[in-house]
């Protein structure tokens, strides 16, 4: 998680961040929940009680017990182990896809906003077309063309995220490019590329990170949805969305198979949203100086 890169825009606000977080206790809750999730995911190979794809037909569909804390699914696989391993995929797909979409979208957005005219029309036109395609349809298309696997799932989510970030990056770029310090940068002989990368980007980084943390929550949900309709990672690899889908066959008699991974999705999305709200308050200049 690169939520706190040392670049200027955030570095500056780090102290404010701690202060605003202190005032807004729920953002600490978000951060802590998230860290717990990350630690669980990282430690999965060591703390998971069973192999997540190891089937045990004798103990299939068993409810919570001391042997299987969160019970087993229809193949007798330990649900807790699958959730822990699934966290690695859900969190990394969510994070990587947002970072990827953020990188592409930000570059395009800053470029469109800075250059204006033709490039603005062209880039933002294409972005609008992408935005018009619903996320699930986008996932369907990408997976249909490239085949269902982890990488393509990440690409599909990144493609839906990128246009959002292009918009988020473009608007402040247009106002920043007319500020005096950009003019001063030109007077120092800096090239357009340098002005975009070293002068405009740090000024919008704060906003991007806030939106990024909120979008990771969405990406985790999208991953779950795509896995749920079978467009995600192929079984038996555990993902949270895939686990919910598999549990659906027995939803009436053995609901825990779907409910437990659902709770983890809920907690993760909640954590990212709480964190994002805290970051937004920290970066909002009106709140920062109060």
């Amino acid at each position, binding site marked *: 998680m690169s939520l706190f890169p040392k670049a*200027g*825009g955030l570095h*500056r606000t780090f102290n404010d961040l701690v202060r605003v977080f202190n005032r807004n206790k729920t953002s600490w809750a978000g951060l802590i929940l998230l860290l717990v999730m990350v630690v669980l995911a990282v430690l999965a190979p060591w703390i998971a009680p069973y192999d997540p794809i190891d089937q045990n037909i004798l103990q299939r569909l068993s409810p919570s017990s001391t042997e299987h804390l969160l019970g087993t699914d229809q193949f007798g696989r330990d649900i807790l182990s699958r959730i822990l391993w699934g966290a690695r995929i859900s969190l990394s797909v969510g994070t990587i896809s947002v970072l990827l979409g953020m990188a592409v979208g930000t570059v395009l957005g800053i470029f469109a906003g800075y250059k204006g005219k033709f490039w603005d029309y062209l880039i933002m036109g294409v972005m609008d077309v992408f935005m018009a395609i619903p996320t699930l349809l986008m996932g369907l298309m990408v997976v249909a063309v490239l085949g269902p696997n982890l990488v393509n799932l990440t690409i599909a989510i990144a493609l839906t995220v990128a246009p959002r970030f292009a918009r988020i990056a473009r608007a402040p770029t247009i106002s920043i490019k007319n*500020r*005096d*310090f950009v*003019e*001063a*940068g*030109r*007077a*120092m*002989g*800096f*090239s357009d590329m*340098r002005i975009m990368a*070293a*002068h405009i980007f*740090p*000024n919008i*980084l704060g906003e991007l990170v806030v939106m990024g943390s909120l979008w990771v929550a969405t990406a985790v949900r999208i991953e779950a949805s795509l896995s749920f309709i079978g467009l995600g990672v192929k079984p038996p690899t555990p993902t949270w969305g895939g686990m919910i889908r598999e549990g659906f066959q027995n939803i009436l008699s053995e609901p825990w198979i779907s409910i437990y991974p659902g709770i983890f999705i809920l907690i993760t999305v909640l954590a990212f949203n709480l964190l994002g709200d805290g970051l937004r308050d920290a970066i909002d200049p009106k709140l920062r100086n109060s």
Partner: protein
Amino acid sequence: MDEKLLVVDKLTTSFQLQNGWYPAIEDLSFSLNRNETLALVGESGCGKSVTAYSIMNLLPKPGSRIDRGRVLFNGKDLVGLSSGEMRSLRGSKLAMIFQEPMTSLNPALSIGKQIAEVLYYHNGTSKKEALKGALELLEQVKIPAAANRLNDYPHHLSGGMRQRVMIAMALAGRPEIMLADEPTTALDVTIQAQVLALLDDLKKEMKMSMIFITHDMGVVARVADRVAVMYGGYLAEVAPVEELFANPTHPYTEALLQSMPRLDRDIDNLKPIPGLVPSIDRMPKGCRFAERCRHKIPRCEQLMPELLPVNSDGTHTVRCWVRASQNISSGDAKV
């Protein structure tokens, strides 16, 4: 001493309004000698900043253009240079500082980084070396406890400090010419005096030449070696600074001096100049100042006068039908 570092020759820059292109400066010719400070003086809208932006090739595009003329820097014409060639001159050989120190620094970068950036961008030094250089520059512009300031962000600094940082950035490329666009206008008077003294010291120390844009005759008296008074996009009068204050010849220069408060004169004697600079799409045909001039004769409104010398060695030139001829004798007497 008399070597001409920068020659501006018949420079004309136009801006686009709704109904066409209008010149903001026209046939502007002047030169800047090595180690000299030339003050460009005039009220708002007379073309001072446009001149500086034209020299730096920083005019907002589209919407403005250089129609004709040359800007010779060390004998090389800057007007036709490619953007890459011009970029390598800006920030190294030609530096510029601006009026608003509060907004001219990037709020998201520490001042050390901002100065260092100019160093490694133009000189190709390593980032570590550049930071060391930034510290030296901060010391050179006399920022107290410079080492502790390197990691400060612009919002930690006062206006005067920020202007010092801007100056440090401008110095980073060891410029031959520094263009200062009203660098002290936004500062309060005590700070203004400090910054002016600093600029003067640095100019001598680094053997720079300076074009100093201002509307404040008090500042002119302090910093300038030579003064070019601009009005309506034309040069009205050019003279060495002592000569100009002793013997202001153009009615506009005279009016500017009379509108300036001075300790040795009663404030009731302040004379504001009636009216405003005409906007660029409504420039009169003859002398641009005619409509506000107390001395005008009919010819003033029909024909633009030439910039003619009024003293024997030709260092004092004036563009005025009424004064140019009259003053030749008194100008002679001065020399």
